[in-house]
């Protein structure tokens, strides 16, 4: 028997360490010999902490939302008694969430112990490397990747095989492989999960890439905000070196390759490839014009392959099963699977890996379980700060680089943020613009100044001071910034505004012409009122109002003075009778 406790960042934040400790304590007290092991995140974030118990016959029972108290009940029933503890077993919707996915990249996530190389090898790991290094030439490796039609999963969607061939062709003897693990898009967390749950698959992909272009040195550029991912990567690198899978003379082939982790120091723009390389060089992470592309002059001006985490994780599977196998899944132009990080106003929050071509509706309703609290769907944000918001009537759009772009969003790194009717789309546009404006490196004027002008206008509109000409000005600024910015950050920055202007223009108009926020989010455009009927005059709101704006006799309907009210919303949260209405 073996007990596996999911301990990715989100599992740990949900209390997985305490759960694991509770099991260990029970086992110690009962003087039993059952190992309590660590695994990564399986992607069922909304059901954490998750515990898998493997019986001696290999059968696995999965428990969800396991608190230390539940752990004791499971221990007594299952570990001691031999019968599964049904009340804590994975619910049907959780099982369906997993069953409806196609897992290629995430096949090991939440299954193996990421801190033990033996687990990775036992699940077929490093077999692709062995095949590539021992039996394949550099050309053959490139041909397989080209044949798979794998495209960059970081957002750009550039064909990976083409990138590799371009670098391979360079006569310069020194080349680099860089893994972009600077997952900066707010709302995207698949790369963190993969790094925490299956770090060896990233290393294996990088070593195969190195063999294809004959590079001796690789870097993983990881966010400093992901300490657990960095720790597990470091463990994986050490273990791979001990096993002769990394370092000098890999698998006795005479091929040398070393990987170093480079911690980013916190700058969103460093997810852009040219900026990322400047940052590794120890400089300000500012993009530079392309060409020259990194394939010609990259890190330290040498030819460089730069791929994202998810892209590299696909490589070992493609090597093992062939390019044709990979290309058989997906649409005409987008092959394979894609991992999405689904969050926001959706029932089943977590990581979802589906074949390219799956409609967004399937993602949100079938797998995600729809919108909580019987609220209405309003939009889904795809692609983070460079992406866009997609409305209800376009939900049948398949996930495919070109199709997503046609409706005004981008595939991006795969952040999917679902928004219900209580979300103000002007506020969302303002939120993203605040982010890009803050993260703009300041090198080129359209991005530095343009994003600030857009933010000023959006803030004005949210404050009820919008002017009729603002909509045209926004459109003009969006086009200018998109056409004239130097890098992807600037070019993509207007997308959240453009897409909301296109699909949710009525909300902008309500803010500007009627001074009304339909979703009742923008503070300047709403007021709080106490409704006569439900109010019992309990006085809870009046006692908690930070500015004493609420008055009334005991057991009588209270009143909010709109001139004093700062619209903090505390009264609305506290009222036990739902007597406070936002108008």
């Amino acid at each position, binding site marked *: 028997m073996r007990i596996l406790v999911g301990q990715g960042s989100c599992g740990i934040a949900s209390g997985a360490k305490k759960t694991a400790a509770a099991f260990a304590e029970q086992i110690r007290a009962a003087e039993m010999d059952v190992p309590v092991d660590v695994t990564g995140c399986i992607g069922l974030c909304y059901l954490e902490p998750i515990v898998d118990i493997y019986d001696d016959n290999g059968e696995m029972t999965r428990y969800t939302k396991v608190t230390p108290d539940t752990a004791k009940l499971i221990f007594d029933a299952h570990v001691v008694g031999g019968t599964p503890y049904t009340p804590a077993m994975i619910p049907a919707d959780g099982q369906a969430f997993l069953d409806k996915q196609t897992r290629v990249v995430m096949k090991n996530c939440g299954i193996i112990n990421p801190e033990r190389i033996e687990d990775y090898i036992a699940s077929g790991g490093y077999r692709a490397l062995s095949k590539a290094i021992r039996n394949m030439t550099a050309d053959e490796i490139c041909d397989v990747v080209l044949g798979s039609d794998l495209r960059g999963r970081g957002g750009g969607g550039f064909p990976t095989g083409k990138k590799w061939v371009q670098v391979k062709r360079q006569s310069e003897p020194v080349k680099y492989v860089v893994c972009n693990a600077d997952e*900066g898009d707010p709302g995207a967390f698949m790369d963190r999960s993969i790094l925490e749950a299956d770090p060896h698959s990233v290393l294996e992909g990088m070593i195969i890439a190195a063999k294809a272009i004959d590079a001796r040195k690789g870097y993983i550029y990881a966010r400093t905000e992901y300490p657990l991912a960095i720790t597990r990567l470091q463990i994986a690198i050490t273990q791979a070196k001990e096993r002769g899978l990394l370092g000098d003379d890999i698998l006795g082939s005479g091929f040398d390759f070393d990987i170093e982790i480079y*911690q980013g120091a916190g*700058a969103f723009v460093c997810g852009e490839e040219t900026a990322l390389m400047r940052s590794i060089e120890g400089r300000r992470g500012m993009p530079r014009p392309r060409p020259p592309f990194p394939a010609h002059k990259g890190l330290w001006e040498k030819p460089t392959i730069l791929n994202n985490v998810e892209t590299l994780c696909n490589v070992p599977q493609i090597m093992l099963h062939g390019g044709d196998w990979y290309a058989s899944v997906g649409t005409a132009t987008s092959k394979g699977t894609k991992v999405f990080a689904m969050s926001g106003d959706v029932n089943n929050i977590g990581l979802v890996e589906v074949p390219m071509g799956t409609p967004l509706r399937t993602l949100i309703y079938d797998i995600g379980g729809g919108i909580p609290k019987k609220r209405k769907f309003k939009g889904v944000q795809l692609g983070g700060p460079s992406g866009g918001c997609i409305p209800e009537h376009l939900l049948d759009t398949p996930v495919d680089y070109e199709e997503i772009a046609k409706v005004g969003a981008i595939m991006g790194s795969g952040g999917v*943020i679902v928004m219900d009717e209580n979300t103000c789309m002007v506020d969302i546009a303002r939120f993203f613009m605040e982010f890009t404006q803050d993260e703009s490196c300041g090198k080129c004027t359209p991005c530095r100044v343009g994003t600030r002008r857009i933010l000023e206008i959006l803030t004005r509109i949210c404050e009820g001071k919008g002017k009729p000409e603002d909509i045209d000005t926004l459109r003009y600024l969006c086009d200018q910034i998109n056409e004239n910015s130097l890098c992807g950050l600037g070019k993509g920055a207007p997308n959240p505004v453009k897409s909301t202007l296109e699909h949710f223009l009525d909300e902008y108009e309500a803010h500007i012409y009627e001074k009304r926020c339909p979703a009742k989010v923008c503070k300047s455009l709403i007021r709080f009122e106490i409704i006569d009927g439900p109010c019992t005059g309990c006085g809870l709101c009046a006692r908690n109002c930070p500015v004493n704006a609420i008055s009334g006799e005991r057991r009588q309907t209270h009143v909010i003075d709109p001139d004093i009210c700062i619209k903090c919303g505390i009264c609305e949260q506290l009222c036990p009778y739902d007597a406070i209405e936002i108008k």
Partner: protein
Amino acid sequence: MEHNQRTDKHLCSNCHSSEYAQLDLVLNEYKDVQGNLIIILQKAQEIYGYLPRDVIKRISDVTGHTQAKIFGVVTFYSQFRLNPIGKHLILLCQGTACHVNGSLAVEKAICHELGIKDKETTPDNLFTLNNVACLGCCSLAPVMMIKTGDTEETYGNLTPDSAIEILEDIRRKEGLA
């Protein structure tokens, strides 16, 4: 020399013999490494908690990077600090999922409770508040991470009330409440 004028108040307990002993070890290891500047600054900040002016000068003297260049790099990246931070660093996530789930209300509550704004430190040096872009725990939104020395703890599904309770809990453990 400039570093003689420094007060010792921002030195960590590990720096016994000389105020630069640990920094010099780092400088010796990395001074000839290509692209060393950010790594050196990260390690220096680990030692001192922030990047004091004379530490920047020392790095400049040993590595040959001009102080202006170092300052340029320091101010470009959000990780680097030019001022000391409190014992507990609150990293409050303002990512999209957290925004949609009410991170602004949480921020307001924390600011009100501690009497500080983003990037400020409480007068008792116990807490520093930093808004951050995304901690990647979107399923638990709104989220904050509290860093205390080398350990970090993540708290999810925050409400204004639960965030304040967490801070009060820390204060209690510090014997201040």
